[in-house]
């Protein structure tokens, strides 16, 4: 736990909190400063360590669309399930996608009904299963942002060099910057700055966020995942606001370089092309926000090899995930939060995985809901 505990030091946290308080007092505003943490891993850490309770009332965190499991639209899940139910297929997936409900049921339920669905920890495990089962077709449910896309791409390249013919991807990789741009283009949006994703940025670097600073005039601070990382990043965003700067800064410099990881980017570039648009649960179609396989890798593309429904399925009418992801509503202000929509029976994206904003409030934060409600800044 060396190099982890150092980033969880409560005394240092206290110093940061005091500094955030001091700087935020210099900003004259009749509204709280709204900062979005984009990444689901950050949302998880914020709730796990109760960071919202430590922050001054002048700071409000908005939990963004950065949980790749949550934003997977129902129609794509239905496709995944339909694929998994085809004969002679072994369908492989990361664990946390197992419980996400499609329009009828989840992969976990499909498994119980007899589909051969296996949880893997890496796409290379899926490739291994393909090698061990040459008579079966092994499909990997490729989900995630630029964090997981390179490992999927490398697995395809490995499959190519190993001449594995019975392996394919159901590609649902998404891109973070187009999603942020879609949020920023929305007139309802009430955000002052961003805590930028950490793992994604180890791959893409910090340069792609320039557009947010330059075109939309919002500060972005790429952040690590430990509580001190997040507090320091919030401090850096608030400091930029106080100094009327809009820049891309890198708090996570121990892992993130401005130009990213060239090897990972190259693998993605070789295997994937950008889709014209991809549907996000809660946000709808976003242009240039998803990845698909390049035609030269069609033999590893489940969408080219198999047929499945391919239907878009609308989110539940009562679900207000879109408003929550934009920071317009807080999770508990949604009409169905904790009643019709719970982690056991999620209606919307934000309740689906423990990294979704609603699930995190439901799991960790129900007690503080009342307290936060009372916060009114004049």
């Amino acid at each position: 736990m060396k190099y982890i505990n150092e980033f969880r030091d409560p005394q240092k946290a206290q110093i940061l909190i005091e500094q955030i308080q001091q700087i935020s007092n210099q900003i004259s505003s009749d509204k709280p400063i709204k900062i979005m943490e984009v990444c689901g891993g950050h949302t998880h850490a914020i709730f796990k360590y109760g960071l919202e309770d430590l922050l001054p009332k002048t700071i409000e965190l908005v939990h963004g669309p950065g949980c790749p499991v949550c934003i997977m639209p129902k129609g794509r899940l239905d496709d995944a399930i339909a694929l998994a139910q085809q004969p002679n297929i072994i369908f492989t997936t990361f664990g946390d996608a197992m419980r996400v409900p499609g329009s009828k049921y989840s992969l976990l339920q499909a498994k119980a009904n007899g589909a051969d669905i296996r949880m893997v920890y890496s796409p290379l495990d899926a490739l291994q299963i393909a090698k061990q089962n040459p008579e079966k077709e092994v499909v990997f449910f490729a989900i995630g942002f630029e964090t997981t896309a390179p490992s999927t791409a490398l697995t395809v390249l490995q499959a190519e060099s190993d001449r594995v013919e019975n392996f394919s991807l159901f590609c649902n990789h998404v891109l973070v910057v187009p999603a942020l741009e879609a949020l920023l283009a929305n007139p309802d949006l009430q955000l002052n700055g961003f805590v930028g994703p950490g793992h994604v940025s180890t791959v893409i670097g910090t340069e792609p966020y320039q557009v947010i600073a330059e075109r939309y005039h919002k500060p972005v601070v790429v952040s690590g995942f430990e509580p001190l990382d997040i507090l320091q990043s919030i401090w850096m965003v608030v400091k930029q606001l106080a100094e009327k700067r809009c820049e891309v800064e890198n708090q996570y410099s121990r892992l993130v370089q401005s130009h990213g990881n060239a090897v990972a980017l190259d693998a993605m570039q070789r295997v994937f092309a950008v889709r014209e648009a991809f549907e996000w649960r809660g946000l709808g179609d976003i242009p240039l926000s998803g990845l698909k396989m390049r035609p030269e890798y069609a033999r590893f593309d489940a969408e080219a090899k198999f047929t499945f429904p391919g239907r878009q399925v609308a989110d539940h009418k009562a679900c207000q995930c879109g408003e929550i992801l934009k920071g317009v509503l807080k999770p508990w202000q949604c009409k169905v939060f904790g009643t019709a929509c719970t982690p056991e029976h999620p209606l919307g994206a934000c309740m689906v995985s423990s990294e979704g904003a609603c699930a995190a409030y439901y799991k960790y934060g129900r007690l503080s809901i009342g307290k936060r409600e009372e916060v009114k800044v004049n």
Partner: protein
Amino acid sequence: MNISHLKMPQRKKKFQERTITLAHGSGGSAMRDLIDDVFVGSFDNPTLSLLEDQARIDLNSLMLLGDRLAFTTDSYVVTPLFFPGGDIGTLAVNGTVNDLSVSGAKPLFLSCSVILEEGLEIDILRRVVDSMKTASLAVGVQIVTGDTKVVPRGSADKLFINTTGIGVIKTGISPSAREIQPGDIVLVNGTLGDHGAAILVARGELSLETDIKSDCQPLNGLVDAIVSVCPNVRAMRDATRGGLATVLNEFAQSANVGIRLHESAIPVKKEVAGMCELLGFDPLYLANEGKLVVVVPPDSADEVLATMRSHPTGKDAQIVGEVIANPAGVVLLKTDFGTERIVDMLVGEQLPRIC
């Protein structure tokens, strides 16, 4: 077929076959040979040796030990069958012993029913039965009745065991979750999550190499020691599946009280903590197989803690939290950061996180 299989007259012939076939569940001589050699030979005790359809237990001797019977049952299915720190046999004895012990009962008798998959190697069965024998001798319980079934290949995963246990509860001892009151103190007897972590590693899917061992151990001795210094112990439970978090949620809901845990006081081995960091797991929810959660009145807490620490299965005991009146039905964690969060029940199994 019923439990009568164990009553077959013992035969001298050494059982020679290497794998289980459907014949070993047929009721015929193949089954009799298997039972005689593998089970009756190992679990040898006076009650079993009577070889009746049922174990007959003398009531008078039971009544000398207390005034109530404790009666429990549990089925054991685990992959892999053997793992660092134990196997399905040690689990099947210690698990049921612990379910009896946490009532304050002295565990006395177990049954052993096995469901075997056709094709199982008999040597594997022998190793498991040997473990059961060793574990039961260590506790001082007797395996007095049993059953054997064989199912076709694919209908079960190698070997399932059910054990049912009987114990006697001392007069005056009646721990129950409903007795828990605000102000009470919560203790555990050692590091959390060892079993769950050991099983995950032993499955070999993680490509991790660790020294983590299952904590599989009987708790009867530790419970005896606690009850002798604190007869009014409020509640005890064996934190197995779902871990400490699940037990405490059950306590909070049964007694309609709140429970506040202190993150800094919760014992977790650094290897287990490291594994949880990698996979996005929370050790509070990982399974244990020898971890006792005890709630005692505040004036007994120090003495109980000292007693637990002087016992081999409690040397790493810690006070981990206290019972509060509000919020009722909720478990809170005071983090090292000085904040509080809810420790909820899990919806299902913990699943590794993608990022």
